């Protein structure tokens, strides 16, 4: 196997895209850093330039001014084709090659890079395994023979094929039904836990951004950066009215969904009674449970089925303060 590549940092440095004949830039003086191995979600209303900003990274859109640096190297200095082969690219409509099998699709970039047959074969099997499509069943199928969710899994495997340190994902789960979307979001996080890429993830869905992103960059109309921070801090301290409005009035509840019962300090059980929930339950679901059961407290159950502690409504509201 080839040596695993380590993740790299991406820096937007005054990145600007001005299309000729337009009164305002599509992306305006964007400056922020995505640390190596993190997922940064670009969110914002349509017309916020999030996809354009993402495409500055692999030069599907060329910078007008400013710079984007990957691992310290300006994308302007790199050969367009080589740059793109080193960046995984996933789009909403997937864009699988209809005339190629699943295996051939996944092998696209390794073939361009001239890997050997046996290397490609074992890499394809490894990747199909990673995205949970058994290679025996799927490698020889065509795109027309698999479901939408399966197609996007193949799209993800194809983007990961040459083990690029950087991935660009443009609303990858936007066309999927809610159940498949949630499943794939979780899978992405599981896969990211294994592969540790630096990922630029474009979405218009703030909930998806909060769930998926280590960091969230919110763009406003005119392609200007409104705020970039961790999901927790964006929800706790929106930089201005625009961000507050964009993340929604339920941002307190959204914050609760970021934390699970197992991650907070609990009061001692002390023989408390009331509804119970496992440690993997989010605070948001815990609150919902308390409210619907008409209880002011909740017993948290450990993996051993024994009570680990108690969460009260008062404790919850303290946590949000």
């Amino acid at each position, binding site marked *: 196997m080839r040596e695993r590549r380590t993740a790299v940092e991406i820096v937007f440095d005054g990145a600007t895209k001005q299309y000729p004949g337009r009164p305002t830039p599509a992306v305006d003086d964007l400056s922020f850093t995505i640390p190596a191995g993190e997922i940064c979600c670009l969110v914002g209303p349509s017309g916020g330039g999030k996809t354009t900003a993402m495409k500055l990274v692999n030069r*599907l859109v060329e910078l007008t001014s400013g710079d984007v640096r990957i691992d310290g190297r300006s994308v302007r200095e790199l050969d367009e084709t080589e740059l*793109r082969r080193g960046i995984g690219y996933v789009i909403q409509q*997937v864009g699988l*090659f*209809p005339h190629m099998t699943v295996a051939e699709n996944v092998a696209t970039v390794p073939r*361009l890079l001239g890997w050997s047959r046996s290397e490609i074969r074992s890499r394809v099997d490894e990747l199909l395994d990673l995205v949970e499509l058994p290679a025996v069943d799927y490698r020889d*199928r*065509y795109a027309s*023979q698999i479901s939408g969710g399966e197609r996007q899994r193949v799209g993800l495997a194809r983007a990961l094929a040459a083990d690029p340190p950087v991935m660009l994902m443009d609303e990858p789960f936007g066309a999927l039904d809610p159940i498949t979307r949630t499943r794939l979001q979780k899978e992405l996080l599981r896969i990211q836990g294994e592969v540790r890429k630096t990922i630029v993830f474009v979405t218009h869905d703030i909930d998806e951004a909060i769930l998926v992103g280590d960091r969230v960059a919110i763009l406003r109309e005119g392609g200007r950066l409104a705020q970039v921070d961790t999901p927790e801090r964006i929800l706790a301290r929106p930089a201005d009215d625009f961000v507050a409005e964009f993340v929604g009035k339920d941002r307190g509840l959204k914050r609760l969904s970021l934390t699970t019962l197992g991650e907070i300090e609990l009061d001692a059980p002390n023989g408390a009674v009331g509804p119970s929930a496992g440690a993997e339950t989010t605070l948001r679901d815990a609150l919902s449970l308390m409210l619907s059961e008409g209880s002011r407290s909740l017993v948290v159950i450990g993996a051993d089925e024994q009570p680990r502690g108690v969460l009260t409504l008062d404790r919850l509201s303290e946590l949000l303060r």
Partner: protein
Amino acid sequence: MTDGPVIPDFGKASSCVAENRLFCPDWVRDNWGSVLQPAVVQHVKLTVIAVAVGFVIAFAAALLAHRHGRFERPFSVFSALVYTIPGIALFQLLVPFTGLSILTVEVALVGYTLLIIFRNVLEGLRSAPPEVLEAARGMGLTRRQTLLRVELPLALPAIVAGLRVATVSTIALATIAAFVVPEGLGRPIFAALRDYFKTEIIAAGVLAILLAIAADVLLVLAQRALTPWASARRLA
């Protein structure tokens, strides 16, 4: 002897031939090797050369028009114009330049294939879905690689469809090549028309039809072999 038309007599005309009945199998049997089979071979040659040359020209033009849209109109107009000229008139127009030769016939036959092949190749090349092209670009395929690995394979069904129409119509059209040179299935037909010898007209005509069907079937089979994805249906 009757007072009817003069039937070619090879010394042992059957009563069927002598009476010019609708169809005389014995004539076909007796004249297969000397008349019909050479005509079929010549006909295939006329067709293959015309379609091959027409394909090369139209394919190159379509690639150019795909890359640079401004070439589409001139070639479209030119090939459509050629297509509208009646076959016999086109032969007449060419004879002063290329004489009563195979070249005259081929130039005309090639001319008629251009429009259909050009249109189909170009449409095929343009049929690649936009998201597929974007994925190709995003993964770092060059323009040339995108053409060779994505656009051309996806254009195959349309290209073969164009070749089928071009081939079948060329087989039909090639029968009038006999106006210019004594080649192909047009030769026995023209010869028989002079005397209204029914068997020969029918035999040569049927052979032309069979040839067209055979060519069409071969191309369909070739397409199936080349584009397995097109016939792969969703597995329930």
